[in-house]
């Protein structure tokens, strides 16, 4: 690909992404939301984030991500459930995955 094509592709991706981001806040302010609709919006975000956790923890491309990454996220999940400090949760996830890989576990 030449520079101009890359520039156009970047521009289209940037504009499209911004449109997705901007549409929510603008549409939201145009329509008067009922308390129930508000709660469903918050629920939708939680569902999306949870699905993102599952997909990014367990899969890579169209297949299974291997053992190390899900193991790290599992350790993080247990620590977070026990209300461990956030920093410990995140560092434990990365350390678990890194150490497993160091030991040869994919």
């Amino acid at each position, binding site marked *: *690909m030449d520079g101009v*094509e*890359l520039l156009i*592709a*970047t*521009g*289209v*991706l*940037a504009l*499209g*992404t*911004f449109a*997705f*981001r*901007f*549409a*929510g*806040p*603008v*549409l*939201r302010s145009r329509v008067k939301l009922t308390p129930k609709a508000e709660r*469903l*919006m*918050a*629920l*939708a*975000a*939680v*569902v*999306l*984030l*949870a*699905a*993102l*956790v*599952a*997909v*990014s*923890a*367990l899969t890579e491309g*169209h297949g299974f991500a291997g053992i*190390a*990454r899900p193991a*790290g*996220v599992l350790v*993080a*999940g247990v620590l*977070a459930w026990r209300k461990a400090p*956030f*920093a410990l*949760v*995140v*560092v*434990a*996830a*990365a350390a*678990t*995955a*890194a150490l497993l*890989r160091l030991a040869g576990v994919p």
Partner: protein
Amino acid sequence: MRSIWRTLDRDLARDIGLVCLADCLVGVSYGAIAVSSGFPLWLPMLMSLLVFAGASQFMFIGIVAAGGNPFAAVLAGLLANARHLPFGFAIGDVLGKRWTARLAGSHLMIDESVAFALAQREAHRRRAAYWACGIGLFACWNIGVVGGAYAGTAISDTDVFGLDAAFPAVLLALVLPSLRDKAARLPVLIGVLVALAATPFLPAGLPVLLALAGVLAGVAAKEPELEEAR
């Protein structure tokens, strides 16, 4: 009371700082991978400034570097970012009413800033968390990408440090408190199962969107509770 808030805010700032550091390193790997895949130096930097959505950026350079069609790469990136539309509906109130704040705030909308905002109870803390995380990540991500692009392949594989596990761990830790609300559990469970079941068959980004099917369970389940509340 005042000191409690101050302490809480310091904790929040530290948590956000940690996420910024991790994302900075992922940014280094993005810059390094892009340049070592043969892209010009400016591409990863410009893309990080204008698109500012890690997964779609990795997807774009991955598809084009593999010889894929640039239109397919843009489409794949847009599909991955479509989840920002429902995100905006959920957290749109933290951006306020001013147009400048809405424009800037929309650009800072990413998984982490949305998750940090949702994890706060009071409105002022939601706003503080969203803006601090958004601005911090924007700065750290772009600094990381510039560093990676110039440093070449110094760190091209952040998986060695387990950083690929850090991203889902961050989101999980932020989302878990919401799951203490019983009404959220069934919708989340359905959403997660739908997304995982769809992942082997559909292009990236779409499975996560399909998880919204779980919200339908929330619509059905919440009706009686709402009537009681009235």
